């Protein structure tokens, strides 16, 4: 048996994906595999899971707006309550898995972990895992914004049911996914079959591990974009950053564009600072800290990553350039 976590924050993995993509199969797999770990599972449909587990909790996806004047600040009230309740248990567990409904926007789930102090004290958001049905993905993109949002928010993507499409179709789906989010790790799966360490304990929201999430540079995806399309981009700079200017620019950017920016992260070479400055955010919410020190002679460059709708890369680069020394 692994040692259960006692005082440390419990990692939370959020599982999103369209109806029928394979989330329940994946959950059943996680719960039934002999990994010696104990997971609490928060599901939206009670009874769908085949595994008998007294740590399965039914949630109602109660999304509400915070009454703090920030319109895009929505959180999951049920999650706050359930996490508080789970912490009253004598039997501790190694992680929490949150399954969202097929049409859920992952934003409120993620923002809950930025907003609620009690939740922050006891848990940490580990990663957003999105399961995609390779055969029906294009159809789902047509049906609404959800499928696109779920890809945009993802840290890990299970491109599932690959046995139901041809190699050519699969390549097209993957290309489209990369067009939305080139920073997520993609795994090809059948029946949601995946090594658990590929999806659990990823530390995707860990400021200390931001460097590990580098884009897939081998990708040669098309760069033709519609204006309201969701996509990801990065901007860089080699000159040091003026922290005051950056704060002003980023603050204003999130104020105006926060609703359209799903995820953002960055590593900054602040003028005169011996350490990297790292941040990451969901919509308007942001966490930041000093990261590892720059080594002697190391090239000090900054890099910002955005995933969102209607992003204007040139405009962002110009705004960032104005923050440089």
């Amino acid at each position, binding site marked *: 048996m692994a040692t259960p976590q006692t005082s440390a924050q419990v990692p939370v993995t959020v599982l999103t994906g369209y109806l029928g993509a394979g989330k329940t199969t994946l959950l059943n797999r996680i719960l039934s595999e002999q990994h010696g770990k104990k997971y609490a599972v928060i599901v939206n449909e009670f009874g769908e899971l085949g595994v008998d587990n007294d740590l399965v909790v*039914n949630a109602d996806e109660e999304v509400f707006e915070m009454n703090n004047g920030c319109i895009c600040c929505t959180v999951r009230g049920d999650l706050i309550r359930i996490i508080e309740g789970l912490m009253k248990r004598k039997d501790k567990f190694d992680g929490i898995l949150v399954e969202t409904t097929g049409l859920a926007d992952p934003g409120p789930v993620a923002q809950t972990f930025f907003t609620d102090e009690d939740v922050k004290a006891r848990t940490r958001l580990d990663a957003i895992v999105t399961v995609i049905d390779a055969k029906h993905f294009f159809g789902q993109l047509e049906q609404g914004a959800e499928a696109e949002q779920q890809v945009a928010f993802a840290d890990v993507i299970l491109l599932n049911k690959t046995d139901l499409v041809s190699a050519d179709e699969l390549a097209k789906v993957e290309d489209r996914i990369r067009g939305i989010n080139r920073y997520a790790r993609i795994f090809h799966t059948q029946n949601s079959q995946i090594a658990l360490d590929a999806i659990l304990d990823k530390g995707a929201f860990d400021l200390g591990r931001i460097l590990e999430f580098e884009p897939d540079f081998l990708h040669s995806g098309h760069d033709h974009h519609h204006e309201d399309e969701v996509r990801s981009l990065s901007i860089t700079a080699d000159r040091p950053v003026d922290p005051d200017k950056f704060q002003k620019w980023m603050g204003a950017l999130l104020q105006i564009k926060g609703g359209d920016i799903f995820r953002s992260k960055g590593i900054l070479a602040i003028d005169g600072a011996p350490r990297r400055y790292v941040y990451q955010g969901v919509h308007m919410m942001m966490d930041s800290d000093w990261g590892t020190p720059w080594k002697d002679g190391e090239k000090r460059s900054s890099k910002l990553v955005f995933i969102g709708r209607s992003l204007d890369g040139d405009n962002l680069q110009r705004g960032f350039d104005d923050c440089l020394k």
Partner: protein
Amino acid sequence: MKIDLANPAWQQTLPPARSLATDAPVAACAFNRDGTTVAFALGDGCIRLLPADVKAAAPDAAVPLHKGVVLSIVGDPAGDGFVSGGDDGRVLRIAADGTATELLAQKGKWFEHLVAHKTGAVAASAGKSMFLLRDGEVREFGPHPSTVAGLDFSKDGSRVACAHYGGITVWSLSKDVTLPPRRFAWQGSHVALRWSTDGKFIATGTQENDIHVWRVAQATDMRMQGYPAKVKSLSWTADARYLYTSSQPVFTAWPFAGKGPEGKPPLQFGDEGAGLMTVVAAHPSAEFVAGGYDSGELQLGDIRTRRSVVLKMADGAAITCLAWSPDGFKLAVGNDRGDLLTIDLRR
């Protein structure tokens, strides 16, 4: 009740107490109706029943009655035992000898909140519904706009108020006339609720670290801000002159006598430095108040003299629940490490 906190004995020695260590967090505690037994609801499904007399021997450990966490417990207003709610979706009646009978079951739901009224009624909430248990019958009220996060009876027991997202809902419980519920709206999520002991006010704590209070008859409301954390514990004094709130470093009481608290600061007293208050419980009849901290410290305060004394030293385990015995001489205390404490204030 005659207790003088100026007596130097309070500073020198702690009052007589019984402390039992278990290994499951304590979610709630309560005394039974006649004050002879105290019950602790634990995170392993057990309910530990102990004699209220701190010198009496403690019986052997209890067996689990709920599967999972016992989330709530109150003294049974219609018997000698208790009524409990669990995350196994069950409400149980626990007799004084520890035997349990099921009163209500809702698969997949958590019975997080229970309140009792001296008329014999118990109200329980699970998910978006409130259930009234009275005279052997169960009636369901709801659904509310979101999960009920707090509830309380009116002074006379004729109504129940439920807190949820977007405000509170007040239900009339009369069987003879069906009245539509009254909705008091205030944007945001309300996470705790207490009806004032004179029936005139309903107070809630909100997700945004505020207090919201409604005047029930006039349907007017007020908001108190400035807390560093969510206020999950609210307690009205027996005379309804003050509302105590948690989430401050000292006892914090809003004055409701006369014209009410508008434009006035709250009364604050007690020793700072013990951390943030997690639970507060006004005495059932006198001017005293007990406050438990996230550091584990427990203080007893007297609002007339603004004095306070330490009843339990900080030990790192946050206090999760407090309950006064009906006669106000004993105090039950639970923490998140599993210590079950009963204190006798008659020294």
